[in-house]
């Protein structure tokens, strides 16, 4: 195990793998093939339209924009790209001054290339700042293009949505995440068992960033990636355990189910954690349509109660009881 850490000697500062393995070329970006291949053509041909990239976290929005800007502008990147994210001051003042100044700046670029303003996490911009951006986008269209990244496009005001082409990113499939994990695992010489990677993929839920972070955390904590370690690091109730509870309910072994729940609760997981995992298990569990519907409904209600502050063991037991009743009513004669 000790030999595995050859790439990073003890005590040496290690940059997060998310950054270390961030693709720098568009072609390396995982998932969303349709959108990404378009960006690649744009990188080759130039004349980038104004873009909004919208999608859940960890699906490669920022990576795509950065890679696109690098491929478009190459050595001019430093002076021809203005990158602002939520950590920068992006009030109305900045939009009016910094962005406008940048847009007026003269940079000699090859034909078909434009300066690029990257606004990451644009949904956290105030609507005032977005309003101020409106005209700037239009007036300087001949020299400057904008690329906005956000989680929900609904938070971008309509005039800006209207000026940009919207590119949606959706969650990555498990296979796509696995492929990328394998690359990292091989590059870093991480010892692993397949179930460990499976567990990482489960915890990530389609979020590449989270997957890489969990992988790194497990590796630096235990130097070995297996199921046990992953769930220790990520501190989620073990899905297998929760799955057993559900199976017991379905098989009408109510006592066993309750026992399993008690174990989980005694391990110190909060009801919110337990029910979040429970819901995801039920969502993917193969059962009759009616049962799934009712189970989801009851879990949803229990989740709501817990969110309202009634996060007690009793609620969880009650949920199991309700699920059992549903099971009994629907039982084949």
């Amino acid at each position, binding site marked *: 195990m000790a030999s595995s850490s050859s790439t990073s000697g003890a005590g040496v500062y290690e940059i997060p793998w998310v950054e270390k393995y961030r693709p720098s070329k568009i072609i390396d970006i995982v998932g969303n093939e349709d959108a990404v291949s*378009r960006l690649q053509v744009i990188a080759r041909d130039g004349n980038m339209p104004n873009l909004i990239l919208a999608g859940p976290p960890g699906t490669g929005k920022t990576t795509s924009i950065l890679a696109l800007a690098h491929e478009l502008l190459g050595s001019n990147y430093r002076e021809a790209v203005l990158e602002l994210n939520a950590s920068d001051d992006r009030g109305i003042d900045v939009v009016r001054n910094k962005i406008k100044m940048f847009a007026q700046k003269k940079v000699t670029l090859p034909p078909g290339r434009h300066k690029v303003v990257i606004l990451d996490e644009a949904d956290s911009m105030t609507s005032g700042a977005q309003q101020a951006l409106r005209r700037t986008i239009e007036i300087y269209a*001949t020299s400057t293009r904008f690329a906005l990244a956000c989680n929900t496009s*609904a938070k971008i005001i309509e005039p800006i949505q*209207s000026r940009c082409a919207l590119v949606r990113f959706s969650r990555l499939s498990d296979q796509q995440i696995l492929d990328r994990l394998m690359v990292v695992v091989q590059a870093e010489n991480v010892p692993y068992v397949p179930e460990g990677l499976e567990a990482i993929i489960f915890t990530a839920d389609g979020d590449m960033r989270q997957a890489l972070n969990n992988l790194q955390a497990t590796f630096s904590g235990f130097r070995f990636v297996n199921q046990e370690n992953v769930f220790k690091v990520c501190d989620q109730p073990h899905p297998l355990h929760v799955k057993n509870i559900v199976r017991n309910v379905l098989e009408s072994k109510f006592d066993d189910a309750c026992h399993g729940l008690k174990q989980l609760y005694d391990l110190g997981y909060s009801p919110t954690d337990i029910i979040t995992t429970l819901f995801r298990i039920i969502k993917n569990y193969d059962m*009759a349509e009616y049962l799934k519907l009712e189970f989801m409904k009851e879990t949803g209600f229990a989740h709501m109660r817990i969110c309202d502050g009634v996060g007690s063991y009793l609620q969880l037991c009650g949920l199991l009881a309700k699920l059992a009743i549903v099971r009994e009513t629907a039982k*084949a004669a």
Partner: protein
Amino acid sequence: MGKARKMVEFDEDDDQSYNLRSSRSSTTNPRATKRARISGEESSHVDKIRLSFQDFDQALSGFKLPSGNERSKNTDLWVDKYKPRTLDELAVHKKKVDEVKSWFEEILDSSKDGFRNNVLLVTGQAGVGKSATIHLIASILGVTVYEWNAPIPTVWQEHMHNSTSGLRYTSKLDEFENFVESTRKYGVIASSNTGGMKARIVLLIDDLPLNNGRHAFERLQNCLMLLVRSTQMPTVVLITDYDKTDSSDQTARSMEDVQSSLERAGALKVAFNPITKNSIKKTLQRICKEEHCKVTTVEIDQVASASGGDIRNAITSLQLFSVKPELNHTKIKLPQPRMNNSYQENEQTMHRCLDNGISSCFGRDETLSLFHALGKFLHNKRETDHVIVADCSDSLVHDQFARLPLKMDAPEKVLSQAHGQAGRVVDFLHENVLDFVSDEAIEDAWCVSSYLADADLLLAASRGKMSWDNKTEDILQSAGASVAVRGVLYGNKQPWSSRWHAIRKPKLWQVERSSIQTKKNLREQRNISFEGSRVSDISVMVTEYSPVLKWLSYRASPELEEKTDEEDSEISEDDEIQDW
């Protein structure tokens, strides 16, 4: 520093002047990058000089037209490149164009008359061609358009630095006020450049200063009222509508007030509707022909309907969309050029891929992809032949609860592909599901409705507020959506034999919107009446405050009430016109 130098910057908003500016930019020395402001000023001088060549340019542009595309082959946004140049190319509804045009003709012809309607107010949602219409008509009639461009404001540090030298801080609003004041009195000073054709000028105010808070807003409103009442120059004010149900946004609401107050002050209002799908399609086809890009009519159709009546967005999306096919052809043609049969098959699958691709990842709003998903849920297609699924024994259920397997992916997967928000999905299902339930099956309707009600309860927490960033809310969202969708699928035991139904927009939204509107009005009244105490909530307002107000003063309140009623009815009418 910079802002004191120049209060008002006029721009002739013509793409030719922009081109000139950009061509200058390539010739200016690299030193200019540091002094962007000054070079900016230089070019605006050039603009003024260009004004005198305006007529010459216009005469020339007639000849330029055919070769015009080469000038900016690959560097312009298509939105700019394919700006409408003739009235035929303009996609806006003919009636609205005529209204604007007749206003222009009126101000040009009857310039000797004493009273005329000097202000035109153009409203409409984003991207319906408000400014394009104005610019086009102006250029056809030979009218010069001046725009008010906000100068770069002072930053706080700059202000601190300047405060010793006696310069005062002026906000954008201040500048706008000054500008309005000066144009009202003196007209546009730069007009001397055009050589005495004073009547042929129109002032365009597109970028209204943004305001925060009631005080600033009142100033803006007063200022605009003054402009409307007493301006000597024909003026066009453009205001963008925000027709969102969740208009919690302060600015959006205050803009509505600006509209109504301008109208009361006597401005002529022309409201642009969203552009129809057919005219968008026509425009897109024209662009495709000029660009020589191969996009099938089906794809154009999808782009057009996904844009939701926003032509600017449609063109931008088309630009993005058109980059793809080229790549695809190279990808597919290379590996197997001779096997004709499989190639065709391949292309077909490719097209299907494209269809799916465009409907799920592009387009401004989710309505189109959402509709695909809704259609799947509502039609509820299942395997017809009796397939006995060898399920594991623990999940066997009574016949009464058993259903045939679904002819689609897992509902959750379909939902995530549709990018729909849970609340919207539930609303749409609720509005439309009864059309798809068989007339005899009242039990099915009961079952479906009860599940939808449950889903609504699950979503109740996140209704109203836009953000659900934390994970817990996320679970509630997906639980609600799943319950709604699966409830509809499960409950609708004998779906109505597949006949065509249009999916309607939820009526609930109209009710919600008008209730928001009413609440807003009430809140405003309260603010006017009590300065300090904001404790009273809406119900107290309705049950106690407004009746008392009615008793006390018959003059003030009835007028207000009528106004709100009118507004409400107007909004609902607009909704009905929109077909989905």
